[in-house]
């Protein structure tokens, strides 16, 4: 195959020659149906498992879903019910706090990690790889590991470490004042190395000669960072905020496994509430309305970040 290809290319010559040699015969008629056949599997799967559920979710949010009795149109009642529900507003608030906290923490530590681990030596490569492990670890395993680490008794792993520094044992997930913060810490632990990788990719694009020339001008490490690195990383910040905001507001698995909303609803987030409403209590219409609100929240967040960036540039 390859041989024949090479041969025929030699025989025909360059692209330009080929046009003249083959003249009008060259543009073999390619059937317009062919690309659609290649696309069909993707389109069918996307239709059934993305677009159809999306449309159905929107429809369901305006109905009372009653199984065999047939659905009944209720207009905006599901929405009204859900936005006036204290549980829902609390969950929305928790989601936002968790999203903002995790995003800020991950970016802060991610940037520090990236700055400390920038470079090409083997040691740095090893530390980067080790630090990245939480990102590739299955989220269900992350949750189990942290449930054990957070064991609230004095002999729990984290409390033992705190004990070395004479800090009294913390309840972590067991107390409503520290539960959301504890979940946030897990999010930061998993998010920081991810952000680190993206920052490292961004740092690779910084013009090295700028460091040198600013150093010649007498700028120390901090000023080099402030005036050369940070401006160069601006697009990376925007990307990370957008991604993290979306990731944060839709968080489910970690919360579901770590606390499932407990204690006393202090960690109930949008998705765990929607899951309970829809799949445990059978309130499909209300759950669908909640999903649409969640969707709207992510869209608003994304657009807001984009708009902020536009103003900055």
């Amino acid at each position, binding site marked *: 195959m390859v041989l024949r290809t090479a041969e025929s290319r030699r025989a025909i010559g360059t692209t330009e020659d080929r046009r003249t040699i083959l003249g009008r015969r060259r543009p073999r008629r390619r059937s317009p149906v062919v690309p659609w056949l290649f696309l069909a599997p993707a389109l069918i799967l996307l239709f059934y498992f993305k677009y159809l559920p999306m449309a159905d979710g929107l429809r369901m949010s305006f109905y009372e879903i009653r199984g065999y009795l047939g659905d009944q149109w209720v207009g905006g009642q599901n929405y009204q019910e859900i936005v006036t529900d204290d549980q829902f507003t609390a969950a929305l608030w928790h989601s936002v706090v968790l999203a903002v906290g995790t995003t800020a923490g991950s970016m802060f530590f991610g940037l520090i990690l990236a*700055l400390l681990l920038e470079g090409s030596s083997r040691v740095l490569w090893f530390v980067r790889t080790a630090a990245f492990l939480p990102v590739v670890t299955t989220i269900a395993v992350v949750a189990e590991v942290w449930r054990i680490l957070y064991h609230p008794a004095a002999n729990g792993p984290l409390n033992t470490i705190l004990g070395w520094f004479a800090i009294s044992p913390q309840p972590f997930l067991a107390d409503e004042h520290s539960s959301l913060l504890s979940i946030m810490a897990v999010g930061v632990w998993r998010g920081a190395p991810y952000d680190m990788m993206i920052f490292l990719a961004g740092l690779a694009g910084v013009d090295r000669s700028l460091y040198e020339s600013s150093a010649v001008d007498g700028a120390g490490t901090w000023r080099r960072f402030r005036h050369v690195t940070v401006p160069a990383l601006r697009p990376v910040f925007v990307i990370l905020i957008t991604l993290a905001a*979306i990731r944060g507001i839709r968080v489910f698995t970690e919360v579901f496994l770590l606390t499932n909303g407990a204690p006393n609803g202090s960690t109930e987030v949008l998705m765990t509430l929607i899951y309970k409403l829809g799949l445990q209590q059978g309130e499909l219409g209300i759950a669908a309305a909640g999903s649409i609100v969640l969707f709207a929240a992510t869209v608003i967040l994304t657009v807001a970040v984009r708009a902020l960036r536009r103003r900055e540039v």
Partner: protein
Amino acid sequence: MSAERFDTVLGLAHRRGLGARIGVFVLYALMVVVFAGPLVALMIGAFSKVVDPTGFSLVPDGGFTVRNFVAAADRDVYHYLINSFVVVGFGLLLQMLVSVFAAYALARHKMRFAALIMLAVLATMMLPEEVITIPLSVVLADVPPFDVNLIGTYAGMILPVGAWGFSILVMTEFMKEVPVELEEAARIDGAGELRTFFSIILPLCRPALGVIGVFGFTMIWDQYLLPLIVATEPSQYTLPIALRTLRSDEEVGIGVLLAAAMLALLPSVIAFLAFQRQFVRGLTSGAIKG
């Protein structure tokens, strides 16, 4: 100070002096402990004779044993593991085939509405999966117009992961770079669409196949909500969702839970270590586009 180079902002690697070097070493060690430590402790715990319900230790308590892995068999852990492999195997195969086919159409053919389709694919990347979970469970229970119920079947866990915007996008971008002359030459030699696709385009896309393969693998292995809503009986659970039942089983003890967690953790870590380069490349390209 005069030896300082400006490859990096902080230039830590080039600091001289014993004190600075020890400081840097301690810092790096701390990072490894913080990020990899809990996972290493998990693995050690899985091989420990005595596993305290309250915690971890970095040395195997009471010596090294595989008892936890033997006991895991009684709790169907290997059955869940096989379930996971079935779902991820068929899911990944489907996802990669679907992506390369779609990318071939989008990147190598002039077709109407190509831009519109690309937009539609991109839109699914923006759409949080969680938003469609409730209606997806309804659609899966009764797939129109066939009246098929996919709840409680492996197909219900496999088909929805078949189309993934990220891998279609990565593949399309990559395929655009394949020189058109190669394809034309094949056509002149009389190769048909499928032949051109399989013997010219696809072999050239191996680096991109590595990227979508390793990302697809971790994405499907990490699936939680989908198997949770599809599996109706414990025998259909994948390993990640089975962990929760293992944990709440009083008789099992934490050793088996740790063994199962380690089995759930290992494949994605191995995939990452084996395909690191592709992984990082895919991560940055995905992030910069997403």
